[in-house]
């Protein structure tokens, strides 16, 4: 039987299609050839690029697939919301913002690759992106080499201060340290540290241990779970051994392990009355996914909760629900992502250009914004001053705010409890100081 569509024909048609598509792509992606050729990678991006035409291109680089899609998708939603709002209000410098969304696919080399693509090929004016510290560390060399700009919206472990990154999530002194202080004051002096086994929980726990030692409290145990693991029985047994009469659990678990941990903690009869826990990776979205029944009465430390009572927050929550559905919730990284787009816009307007990185960077420092969490301002170390809050999980899955600082806390990226970075600071407004200088 002779098949009509043989291998040879397939090869011919296939290569013809392939060739045509490459040709089309080549034509489409190079409408302004002079811009592509003249831009050398070491100089600041050429003015002809992002600002040309009636739009300003910005990059959005998050994981839309893979493990981290769970968290990063809603951050993309928040960024898109801010961009849509800005565009509706007339755009930046009279131009509309055009977002180029790329998928980092929860894979760190892919992040670096896509960042290069956004900068070189799409010629974006800035990039909003990343969630995990691993992805940020992967793209950092790209941004430094190309002298470009990344806005990073997630609380992180600190110990970094790059000229090319603006950190709008909390530094440790804006989340972890105040929450430990609050626990010491209100809940007890014996701590059990539980975390996922990767860089953030380990660094965070190093800080917590140094802090507790300085304050005369005790860490009775410490345990790490592989990312994604859901077998928490041994950890629960250990907590029970170490704290037979109750005590504080400091939880830096990430992702799926949280669900297993809290479901089984309740099954083991260890409720928040005897074993209160403080989490730094559980926000409104995660509470919804774990189930408020399991988390009620436990605590979390963030800068923003959906229940924050400010006019700006009311507006933000309403706009978000109108755009994405009334069952959606807002959380801290989403708020940080939302405000960083606005701060970038203010910086561009002050600098009167979107393409000159040096000018935009200089203009960004000192910008203030009336954010949903309260007024924030961008410090010279490229971090945001933020209000610190502690929330307790309610029946409806939102947080009852039990403690809140009066005003925004200034960011300290280099940790002052850890011996290696004690006495260091960061200041990008002064060329003599830079990313890491000794204060004393």
């Amino acid at each position, binding site marked *: 039987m002779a098949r*009509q569509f043989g291998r040879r024909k397939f090869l011919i048609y296939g290569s013809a299609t392939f060739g045509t598509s490459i040709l089309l792509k080549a034509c489409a992606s190079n409408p302004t050839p002079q811009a592509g050729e003249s831009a050398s990678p070491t100089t600041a991006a050429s003015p002809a690029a992002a600002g040309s035409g009636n739009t300003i291109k910005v990059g959005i680089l998050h994981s839309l697939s893979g*493990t981290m*899609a769970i968290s990063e998708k809603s951050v993309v939603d928040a960024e898109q919301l801010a961009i849509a709002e800005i565009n509706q209000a007339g755009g930046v410098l009279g131009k509309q913002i055009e977002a180029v969304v790329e998928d980092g696919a929860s894979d760190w080399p892919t992040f670096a690759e896509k960042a290069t693509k956004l900068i070189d090929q799409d010629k974006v004016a800035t990039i909003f992106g990343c969630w995990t510290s691993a992805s940020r560390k992967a793209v950092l060399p790209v941004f430094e080499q190309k002298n470009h700009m990344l806005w990073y919206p997630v609380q992180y472990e600190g110990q970094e201060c790059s000229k090319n990154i603006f950190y709008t999530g909390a530094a440790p002194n804006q989340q972890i340290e105040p929450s430990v202080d609050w626990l010491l004051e209100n809940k007890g002096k014996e701590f059990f540290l539980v975390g996922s086994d990767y860089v953030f929980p380990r660094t965070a726990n190093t800080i917590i241990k140094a802090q507790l030692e300085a304050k005369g409290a005790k860490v009775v145990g410490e345990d790490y779970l592989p990312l994604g693991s*859901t077998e928490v*029985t*041994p950890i629960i047994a250990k907590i029970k051994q170490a704290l037979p009469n109750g005590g504080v659990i400091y939880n830096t678990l990430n992702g*799926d392990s949280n669900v297993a941990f809290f479901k089984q903690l309740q099954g*083991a009869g260890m409720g928040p009355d005897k074993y209160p826990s403080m989490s730094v990776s559980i926000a409104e979205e995660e509470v919804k996914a774990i*189930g408020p029944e*399991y988390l009620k009465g436990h605590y979390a430390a963030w800068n923003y909760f959906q229940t924050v009572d400010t006019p700006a927050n009311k507006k933000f929550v309403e706009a978000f629900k109108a755009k994405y559905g009334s069952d959606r919730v807002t959380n801290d990284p989403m708020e940080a992502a939302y405000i960083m787009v606005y701060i970038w816009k203010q910086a561009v307007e002050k600098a009167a250009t979107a393409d000159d990185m040096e000018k935009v960077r200089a203009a960004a420092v000192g910008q203030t914004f009336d954010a949903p969490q309260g007024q924030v301002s961008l410090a010279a170390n490229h971090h945001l001053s933020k209000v610190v809050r502690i929330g307790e999980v309610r029946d409806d899955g939102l947080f009852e705010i039990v403690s809140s600082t009066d005003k925004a806390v200034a960011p300290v990226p280099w940790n002052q409890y850890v011996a290696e970075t004690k006495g260091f600071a960061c200041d990008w407004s002064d060329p003599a100081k830079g990313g890491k200088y000794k204060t004393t």
Partner: protein
Amino acid sequence: MLTGLVDGILGGIGIGSVLLLAALGLAIVFGLMGVINMAHGELMMLGAYTTFVVQNVFKSLGGDWLETYILFALPLAFLVAALMGLILERGVVRYLYGRPLETLLATWGVSLILQQFVRSVNWVLVIGLALFCLFFFGGMWLLSRRADWQRLRGWAIALLLPLSLGISAVTGNILSQTYKLVVTKPWFGAQNVDVTAPKWLRSGFSLGSFQVSSVRLFIVALTIFCVVGIYLFLQRSPWGLRIRAVTQNRSMSACLGIPTQKVDALTFALGSGLAGVAGCALSLLGSVGPNTGQNYIVDTFMVVVVGGVGKLVGSIVAAMAIGTLTYLIGSDAFRPLLTAVPPLADFFTFFSSTSMAKVMVFALIVVFLQVRPAGLFPQKGRTVDA
């Protein structure tokens, strides 16, 4: 001393039964059929999502119904996963019998597709898929009744494929333009979803000085039920007899008039269905999200390999052994016994963190497989080489 022993056994059985429940389906698909099904975890995930849907339906019914949803979710999860397994076997796996590498890659691909499917499934996608299947497969079926079908086949595909793709794409576009968020909103989304155990499973009760969690007890009971059920099915029912016959000698069974293709499909569906049940039960302990299945796939293969491919009893013993070992090392149970020998005590303390315990368990498994490469209960006889 005695309390430590009882505690270790209880904890071990708790972890072991979870492992066993997750591995049972694989023990059938991989153990009996020899198919390396990388999508096993995703079938568990489908079971977990079925539980989520059933829970929401019962929630809307209100009243005391919510307390019983899990009893309805279990059989439904079995059915959904079994159906998916059937489609998988008929659509992919049956073309790849005897080619383990291709099966591995193909099922791995299916697992990725299923993961992304639950992330992005919405009405538009479902309607588009349904339309595509209707036009493409319906058209093929209609045409295949013509006498000159063999000659037409290539052209039919070339014509029907873009046509049905176009129709479904256009319909999807129109739908999303007219109804907006209502149809384009994902059903589940990339976020994990919340499955809450009924109240009677959420607490625990004390047994002397031990706290036993009722979910664990429920899973132990369910595991026993499943094991007994499979045993009876394989040993006492006519289809079980056929399955055993085909796994022992395929060509001879075919000669004797056993419909081997049907047996293959049934075995695969059975294994998949068990994965669904496992997913339903494990949603009470852990998270339900697109990645749920990935967390279990390595553990399940480990159980089947250590137990010996082709033997259910091997999987049972292996699951319990691995569970107990994980618990004892992970909870640092050896330390009180070894205080007399400080270096040894330090050694076990070092490995007592949960992630290090896993390293140790894997190292022990590697050593064990060096001694007994075929597992705890190797299959004997001439069929082994076949």
